């Protein structure tokens, strides 16, 4: 061991004190792809252990001895690691040193130590081993002192740990703390208030719920599967039906030689029906023509008389609509009967429906709703403020203008064009001249 090595040890010790027993400071940075430092140490530890184990084995030989040795020899990974270490050890150490250099506040003393450090690089393995051993001894001593104060059983344990672990320094610290922790006094908690029971119940509940869910899902799946099967069968049947559609040409017998007399009879019936239909049409047409002619030849008075005698059929009476009932237009096309009965665009029952009858939401009695809700599209963005016009009407019905009293009648009589009856327009003379010429 060189002198420089001793100096560096002293420096390290000083720094240890300054930094509060953190030991040899190394920046333990993790580099991806590079074996971390602790792995290195573990390796060494293992070596140390194996040395011990070898001693033990010497004392108490075991069956596995040979196999263990073999495996150790054969372990390629270990071998590779060892090789790598032999190659890179110097480099790695240089790396560590470089990083540490960055931290050091440069003083003269430190500078010297750094010089030492540079020397250290050339230091052989023995020096390192020596240093490590010394640190270990120091720690051991301290721990023994501490253990003397602690319980004897703990001491034993610690000793074992001591031997096994290198960095037991931390542990001793933590154990020191554990000793200081005050134990909490056990307090009785009634069953109903215990969190554990509530928790257990909750878990059970959850489990039950999950089970139920699974069961329900299974049921749903069953129903779904059944539906799919039914759908499949239906599809097959449909396809079959469509295929068969072509096949039943023999269903309808069109042999004309068969039963000709009956055919003739049925034809006669059809022919008579056709002739009747034609005659009816013709008669209806004639009747209409005659009526038009008759009306044209009548005078105004006669026409009025006729109208009075056979009045027009009353239009359908309007139903009383419900309050706030929505209006639906019945549609513009094909509302009346087709004028030509031959056309296929005939009338359907849908056109005869009452389109003013309430449907859907309108069936509800809206008069019982609160006043705010008595508006169109309540609760929607398109909602209106108004219920209907009558409610917003501000006309004053008490003014003489609105009342149809004698005053109003007198005023109306003075207005132009109120006395003479409205006559039928006679047309322009120009047009008549043009037509006659």
């Amino acid at each position, binding site marked *: 061991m060189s002198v420089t090595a001793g100096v560096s040890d002293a420096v390290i010790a000083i720094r240890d004190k300054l930094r509060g027993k953190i030991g040899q400071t190394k920046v333990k940075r993790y580099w991806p792809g590079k074996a971390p430092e602790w792995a290195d140490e573990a390796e060494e530890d293992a070596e140390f252990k194996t040395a011990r184990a070898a001693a033990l084995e010497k004392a108490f030989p075991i069956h596995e001895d040979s196999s263990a040795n073999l495996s150790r020899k054969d372990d390629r990974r270990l071998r590779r690691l060892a090789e790598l270490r032999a190659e890179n050890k110097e480099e790695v150490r240089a790396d560590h040193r470089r990083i540490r250099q960055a931290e050091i506040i440069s003083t003269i003393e430190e500078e010297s130590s750094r010089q030492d450090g540079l020397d250290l690089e050339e230091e052989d393995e023995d020096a390192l081993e020596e240093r490590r051993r010394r640190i270990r001894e120091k720690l051991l001593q301290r721990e023994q002192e501490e253990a003397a104060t602690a319980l004897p059983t703990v001491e034993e344990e610690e000793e074992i740990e001591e031997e096994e672990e290198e960095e037991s320094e931390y542990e001793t610290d933590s154990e020191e703390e554990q000793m200081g922790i005050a134990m909490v006094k056990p307090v009785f908690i009634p069953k109903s208030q215990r969190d554990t029971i509530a928790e257990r119940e909750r878990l059970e509940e959850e489990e039950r719920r999950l089970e139920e869910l699974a069961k329900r899902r299974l049921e749903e799946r069953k129903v779904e599967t059944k539906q799919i099967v039914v759908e499949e069968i239906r599809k097959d049947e*449909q396809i079959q*039906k*469509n295929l068969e*559609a*072509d096949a*039943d*040409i023999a*269903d*309808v*017998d*069109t*042999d*004309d030689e068969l039963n000709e007399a009956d*055919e*003739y009879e*049925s*034809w006669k019936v*059809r*022919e008579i029906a*056709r002739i009747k239909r*034609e005659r009816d*049409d013709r008669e209806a047409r004639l009747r209409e023509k005659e009526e038009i002619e008759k009306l044209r030849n009548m005078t105004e008075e006669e026409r009025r008389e006729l109208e009075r005698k056979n009045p027009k059929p009353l239009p359908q009476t309007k139903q009383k609509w419900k309050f706030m009932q929505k209006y639906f237009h019945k549609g513009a096309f094909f509302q009346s009967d087709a004028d030509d009965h*031959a*056309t*296929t665009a005939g009338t359907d029952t849908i056109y005869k429906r009452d389109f003013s009858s309430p449907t859907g939401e309108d069936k509800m009695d809206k008069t019982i709703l609160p006043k705010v809700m008595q508006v169109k599209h309540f609760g929607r963005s398109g909602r209106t403020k108004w219920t209907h016009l009558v409610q917003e009407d501000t006309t004053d019905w008490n003014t003489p203008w609105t009342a149809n009293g004698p005053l109003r009648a007198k005023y109306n009589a003075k207005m132009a064009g109120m006395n003479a009856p409205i006559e039928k327009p006679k047309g322009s003379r120009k047009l008549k001249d043009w037509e006659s010429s």
Partner: protein
Amino acid sequence: MANRTDPTAKSIHGTNPQNLVEKIVRSKIYQNTYWKEQCFGLTAETLVDKAMELDHLGGTFGGNRKPTPFLCLVMKMLQIQPEKEIVVEFIKNEDYKYVRILGAFYLRLTGSVTDVYQYLEPLYNDYRKLREKLSDGKYSLTHVDEVIDQLLTTDYSCDIALPRIQKR
């Protein structure tokens, strides 16, 4: 183009004769296998053979509205536009009722009102049985006079809108 109208064909009712069949039905006919296999390159003469093989009439049927061979042949006649004499011969023939109906249908589609009444009204006396394919693919029994009555009085037959016709 197999589906093109004969270039020498006269326009009927102011349009291409094939346009008398609605676009959708027309495209259905063009896609039909009977049209592709049997109706390709037919002339007025060869069309007669096909018409004689007919055993039912009708418009479109089934889930995908397949056109019947009858409809395909009507389409073919519109395409090649046979002469009026040929059509009249179709109507006048006694042996083949489907040929007669085919001719009557074509005349109703393309002929003038006087022609329609002149040639079709005598067919009221024909009470032979016919097989008609309904829209669900089933057959039903009908008669020549019934079909003629339908042609003369209604405005829609065999999924084709018939031109307007004056009353007798």
